[in-house]
C-alpha cells in the first residue's frame, strides 16, 4: 500500500521551538489517518441529511449556523447552509455516508487527500489564532464543537473548536506547508511544541 505523505514534509520538526522561557504556550500536531468528508444537503433535505449523518457516524448536530460536535476522533460541524464537514478515523466513513445519503438527499465529496488538519492546543491558543484570523475566539463567541469558515491571507480555512484550549484547522493540502510555517512564526512568541 502506498504510504500517505504529509504535505508538511521537512518543515515538520518535532520538539520545542520559539520562546519557551515562559513554558510551552501551544502545541501543534498534524492529525493523520482520518477521513474527511464534505456533505452538502439540498435546501429541503437538511434535517434528513443531519439524521443520516447521525446514523452513519453516531454524531448528531443541529441545523443551526456553525453547530457541531466532537466525539473522540469523530467530529461534525456545519460551515455553510446545508454544508457539513464530517471527520472520523473510520476508513469506511465515506462508504457509510454514501450508503446513508443518496443523491436525492445531497452530495458527498471526499476531501481526505485535499485537506490537511492541524490541531493547535494550549493555554495561548486564542492569542495565537487571533493573529491570523479575524474572528472572536473567546469561548462564548466560539463554543466547543462549533465550526467557522474564514480566511487566512485570502486562503480559505475551516476551524472547529475541540475543547476550551484546542482547535482543528482545515487548510488546503497544497497550502498546508506555507500555512504551517506561518503558524509557527505566529506561535514563536509564546513558545510552541510540535508533536
Amino acid at each position, binding site marked *: 500500500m502506498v504510504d500517505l505523505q504529509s504535505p508538511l514534509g521537512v518543515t515538520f520538526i518535532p520538539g520545542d521551538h520559539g520562546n519557551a522561557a515562559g513554558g510551552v504556550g501551544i502545541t501543534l500536531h498534524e492529525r493523520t489517518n482520518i477521513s474527511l468528508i464534505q456533505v452538502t444537503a439540498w435546501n429541503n433535505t437538511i434535517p434528513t441529511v443531519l439524521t443520516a449523518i447521525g446514523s452513519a457516524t453516531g454524531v448528531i448536530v443541529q441545523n443551526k*449556523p*456553525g453547530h457541531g460536535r466532537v466525539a473522540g476522533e469523530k467530529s461534525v460541524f456545519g*460551515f*455553510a*447552509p446545508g*454544508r457539513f464537514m464530517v471527520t472520523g478515523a473510520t476508513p469506511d466513513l465515506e462508504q457509510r455516508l454514501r450508503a446513508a445519503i443518496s443523491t436525492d438527499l445531497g452530495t458527498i465529496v471526499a476531501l481526505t487527500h485535499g485537506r490537511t488538519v492541524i490541531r493547535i492546543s494550549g493555554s495561548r491558543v486564542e492569542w495565537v489564532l487571533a493573529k491570523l484570523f*479575524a474572528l472572536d475566539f473567546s469561548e462564548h463567541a466560539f463554543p466547543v464543537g462549533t465550526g*467557522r*469558515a*474564514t*480566511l487566512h491571507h*485570502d486562503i*480559505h480555512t475551516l476551524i472547529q473548536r475541540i475543547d476550551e484550549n484546542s482547535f482543528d484547522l482545515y487548510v488546503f493540502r497544497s497550502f498546508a506547508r506555507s500555512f504551517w510555517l506561518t503558524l509557527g512564526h505566529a506561535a514563536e512568541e509564546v513558545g510552541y511544541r510540535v508533536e
Partner: protein
Amino acid sequence: MIIKCPYCGPRDVIEFTYQGDATRKRPDPSSTDQNLWNAYIYDRSNPAKSHREFWLHTGGCRQHLVVTRDMSTHSISSVGFARDSKHAGDQ
C-alpha cells in the same frame, strides 16, 4: 466595514466580494432594444443614500447575499440571502 452574514455572523469586509447593483432588471431576452440593453449593462445610478447590492461571502459560507448599504456612510441596514430575496432584481 463589517457585514453581518446571516449564517456566519459579523465578518470583516475583506471576506466578501462585491457583485454589483441588486436593483437592476434584466430586459426581456428577446428584446432588441439596444438602448435598453445598454442601460442594463452600463448605467448605474450611484445614489448617495441607501442602496441594494449583491455581495458574495467568498471567505466564509460562500453564499450570495443582498446587502442594503448607505453609499455615503457605509452603514448597513439589512443583509439577507439572495435566494430568499424577492426584491433582488432578476439576475
